[in-house]
């Protein structure tokens, strides 16, 4: 049986039995997906790699909790990754909010921000055509929610738009995304 012919569903069943070989194959298949998401959300490579490690250790420990009824193994793993990344982003924001008043303004020009900008640019270049095809206002709310981990209320505050407008844009973006995905699949 070749590695590629083994389904992720079967691999995850084997991981639930603590099968390291299956875990290695699952990692090889899914780590680029998880790492790409982590890079877009956290922007800093070392943080993205830390997140990748945390996610796969959790997959190893909790594979028995996975059920095919919850969706594909990839969606389950990505959901774990997003939840953890959002927790980190919110923690960082809380730290920044409590730090900003006493912070040295010169830090705004720190090299880390330069690195972040570079990673951001790299990530934006890699943004899918599906996102690019969305109207700008819809794409913006989708990115802020999905890649920056902001809630609808935080997005409304960030964009200085009414909450209802943000919700409408979000739903329109998702509906459009469904259509694009269907067209791509056809």
């Amino acid at each position, binding site marked *: 049986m070749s590695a590629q012919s083994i389904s992720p569903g079967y691999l995850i069943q084997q991981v639930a039995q603590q099968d390291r070989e299956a875990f290695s194959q699952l990692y090889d298949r899914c780590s680029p997906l998880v790492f790409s998401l982590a890079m877009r959300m956290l922007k800093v490579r070392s943080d993205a790699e830390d997140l990748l490690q945390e996610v796969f250790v959790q997959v190893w420990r909790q594979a028995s909790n996975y059920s095919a009824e919850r969706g594909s193994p990839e969606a389950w793993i990505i959901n774990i990754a997003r939840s953890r990344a959002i927790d980190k982003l919110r923690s960082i924001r809380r730290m920044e909010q409590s730090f900003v008043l006493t912070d040295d303004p010169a830090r705004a020009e720190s090299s880390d921000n330069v690195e972040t900008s570079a990673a951001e640019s790299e990530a934006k270049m890699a943004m899918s055509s599906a996102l690019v095809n969305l109207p700008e206002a819809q794409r913006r709310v989708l990115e802020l929610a999905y890649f920056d981990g902001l*809630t609808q209320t935080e997005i409304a505050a960030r964009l200085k738009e009414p909450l209802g407008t943000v919700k409408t844009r979000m739903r329109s973006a998702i509906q459009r995304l469904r259509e694009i995905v269907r067209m791509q699949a056809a």
Partner: protein
Amino acid sequence: MATAHEHWLEQGDIYALGALDGQELKDFEAHLASGCAICEAYVRETRESLLLLHRATTQFEPSPAVKARIFDQIADGGKVVPIGAAQPKRRRTWQRVVGTIAAGIAGVVITAAYYHTRYEPRHSLYTAVIDLLRDPDTRDVALYGAGPTPAALGRFLWNKSGEGHLFVTNLPAAPEGKMYAVWTIAPQSPPRYVASIRTDARGQGGVHINAAASDKPIETFAVTLEPVGTTAAPTGPMVLVSKQS
């Protein structure tokens, strides 16, 4: 049925994005917990759509060191069941002798699989470090203890491409809520965070680094003790530093 669920489906889209909050989030989670199969399927479908969006994008490759770290972390416990061997197989009585031989072969295969799985990620890391050492653009920089850790020592392999590897010794594990942050400093530039490093009970640690290339030559390498999450600029004491060239 879907019309009756219009309100919940609207919430479901935003929930799947992770953007639902406040009372709406609580209400929707309670609705899901009540066992609504329609909304559960809708959320699942939306998440799958978002996953397909990922597949259409360029992917980034993590460093081989991450896989090594993960396998180190799960090293305790866990048994090895090779994929093929885990498939249910029927055996006939007259095949017992053949089965015994096959079991012997399977033992060899299992052992080989174990060593491959256990050590392959570590091998990848070693290969990456050896490649660094072979590259003439790699510098080998000594780091010396400073401030609260005068006995600490480090060795920083740094390539101008932004790849590097740091080894440290005699550096006590960071206290709870703190981390060791690794910085590179170019002339007339602020320190740049490139990684965090952990040490074990023996004070030893290592981290493989894949940072963006710097357009200026790095003059100083340093490690500071920071509150967890600090990456914008160093705020804590320096624990290791290279001699400025």
